[in-house]
């Protein structure tokens, strides 16, 4: 029944509703595909085969009334705590960590009848842009360029397992998290859709924290409509997350096909950067053309502080990470390297449990927050962040959404861009500004590079206006060739 994995999430819901197949058949088809392909791709860290089949059986024997995802098999990024199911954050530090509770977002998905196939690979603690920092091995993109003899492309990161699993049909939908582009950049690299919602739209409770003022959970899927359905199930106020915002969640699917006629689409001139691949520029211009032809008005805008966003991010994110990751001390959960005294136990545990990139960011963050440097780095970055956010506020007085590329290139090869941390960080140059401003942003596949690899366009919207972002994405998707 491998053809069941070829369905979109929307088609699968329809098939289940009309009893064309059962949730058990649908789940088994995915487990079979995972068994065949995951050994090569390494998209899943932990499989939940038994649990998934039990949940599928339950879905087949109970009515799905009102549930948005009744009987739908999903992959869950291994940054979400799942009760009774190992949750590693792709780190050795949490190799044996079995959460005694469920994250709020995954609980929302379970309440809507979703089935969890397993836990998806990522960069360690979501720190990376190529899914090469996982303690459980790199993830390979299932996509090949025209001249690639074998699978050699990165899936992007940090939600690389989620994007690769979707592209290889190892799940119908997936969760991701995005701190500086971790949903959008892998979505672009793997030719799938990814939405970073407005900060505060989805609960962060039970998600392993990286940089708390930026972290946001969001949906990833193969179509914009699938993404909207997942978003509907994931979003909502949660009193357990003090930054969760108590505003009504609209019906995302209802407004999905309303088109772009009369919408004002901003093209920020600062996103035209030196050294951008020509195919990225071409896709961006074609996207502009498609929206204009669909009735939108294209307006050039300026976000003058864009060039400082990456530097700002690489101060704020490590600073918050160094604080968040202080909890991994070998005392209450996670790895412990025994030692004669407490201090050595901390130091040995953290040296053994964290990989190179994570250690780097903790060290930088500790330096930035240390006495005498706080004002020069952290406070300065928070001031620049305010200016970046103000750029967006001012732009959104003139336009309804912004259209930009998602990433500065197609998916690169494993082993590339690893000589220097800054080269890797530059992957996030177009995604980081929206993260700093907290506004929603969608990556939608749009065209192919000359190598035959997918490219993505990014639609950035006003805070809590995911509806417009999705509607614009839907128009771009409908013309994607």
């Amino acid at each position: 029944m491998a053809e069941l994995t070829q369905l979109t999430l929307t088609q699968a819901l329809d098939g289940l509703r009309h009893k064309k197949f059962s949730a058990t058949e649908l789940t088994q088809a995915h487990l079979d595909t995972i068994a065949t392909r995951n050994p090569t791709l390494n998209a899943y860290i932990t499989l939940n085969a038994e649990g998934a089949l039990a949940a599928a059986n339950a879905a087949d024997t109970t009515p799905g009334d009102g549930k948005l995802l009744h009987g739908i098999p999903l992959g869950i990024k291994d940054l979400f705590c799942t009760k009774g199911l190992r949750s590693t954050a792709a780190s050795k530090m949490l190799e044996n960590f079995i959460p005694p509770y469920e994250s709020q977002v995954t609980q929302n998905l379970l309440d809507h009848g979703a089935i969890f196939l397993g836990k998806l690979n990522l960069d360690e603690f979501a720190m990376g842009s190529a899914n090469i920092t996982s303690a459980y091995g790199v993830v390979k993109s299932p996509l090949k360029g025209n001249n690639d003899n074998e699978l050699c492309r990165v899936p992007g990161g940090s939600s690389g397992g989620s994007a690769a699993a979707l592209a290889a049909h190892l799940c119908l939908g997936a969760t991701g998290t995005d701190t500086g582009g971790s949903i959008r950049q892998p979505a672009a690299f793997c030719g799938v859709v990814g939405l970073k919602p407005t900060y505060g739209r989805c609960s962060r409770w039970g998600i392993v924290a990286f940089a708390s003022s930026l972290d946001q959970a969001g949906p990833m899927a193969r179509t914009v409509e699938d993404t909207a359905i997942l978003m509907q199930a994931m979003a909502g106020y949660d009193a357990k997350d003090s930054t969760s915002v108590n505003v009504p969640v609209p019906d995302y699917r209802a407004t999905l096909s309303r088109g772009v006629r009369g919408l004002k689409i901003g093209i920020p001139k600062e996103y035209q950067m030196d050294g951008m691949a020509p195919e990225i520029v071409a896709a961006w211009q074609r996207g502009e053309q498609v929206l204009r032809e669909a009735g939108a008005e294209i307006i050039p805008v300026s976000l003058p502080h864009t060039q400082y966003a990456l530097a700002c991010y690489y101060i704020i994110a490590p600073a918050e990470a160094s604080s968040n990751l202080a909890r991994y001390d070998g005392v209450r959960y996670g790895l412990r390297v025994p030692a004669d005294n407490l201090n050595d136990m901390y130091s040995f545990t953290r040296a053994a449990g964290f990989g190179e990139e994570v250690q780097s960011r903790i060290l930088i963050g500790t330096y930035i927050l240390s006495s005498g440097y706080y004002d020069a780095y952290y406070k300065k970055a928070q001031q620049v962040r305010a200016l970046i956010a103000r750029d967006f506020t001012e732009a959104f007085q003139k336009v309804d959404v912004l259209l930009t590329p998602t990433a500065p290139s197609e998916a690169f090869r494993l082993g590339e861009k690893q000589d220097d941390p800054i080269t890797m960080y530059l992957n996030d140059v177009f995604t980081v500004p929206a993260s700093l401003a907290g506004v929603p942003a969608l990556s939608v596949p749009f065209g192919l590079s000359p190598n035959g690899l997918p490219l993505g366009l990014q639609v950035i919207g006003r805070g809590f206006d995911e509806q417009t972002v999705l509607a614009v994405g839907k128009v771009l998707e409908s013309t994607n060739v």
Partner: protein
Amino acid sequence: MLIVILSAAKNLKLRKILRYTQDDSISYTDKGNAMSFNESTVRHIAKLSRIALPETQVPIVTERLQKILGFVEQLSAVDTTGVVPMSSVSHVTLPRRADVVTDGGYPEAVLSNAPEKLHGFYVVPKVVG
């Protein structure tokens, strides 16, 4: 091995804070500048971060972190006079909750991932002389 059993994470946190203030009272005289960031800075921040960094790694890590600091240094070009630092994108004020117990009562679940436990407590190496 002598053990000290701590009844709550709060105690542990307090002890850690005490140790930090005893051990790490080195103050900086030079202000933020990537050039002054050297191997001895790395050894010091590794100690503050409680990461045992092998001496052979120090030059490699120093070079890597210098590159990152050199990159973020560009922010000094931005005029931020009078700009209020932004600590959160949420415009809502942080909610207050009623001061009542809403959760708990399952010590087994709380301790289920403990690397070492005894009689319902976390076990750590000896911390007082």
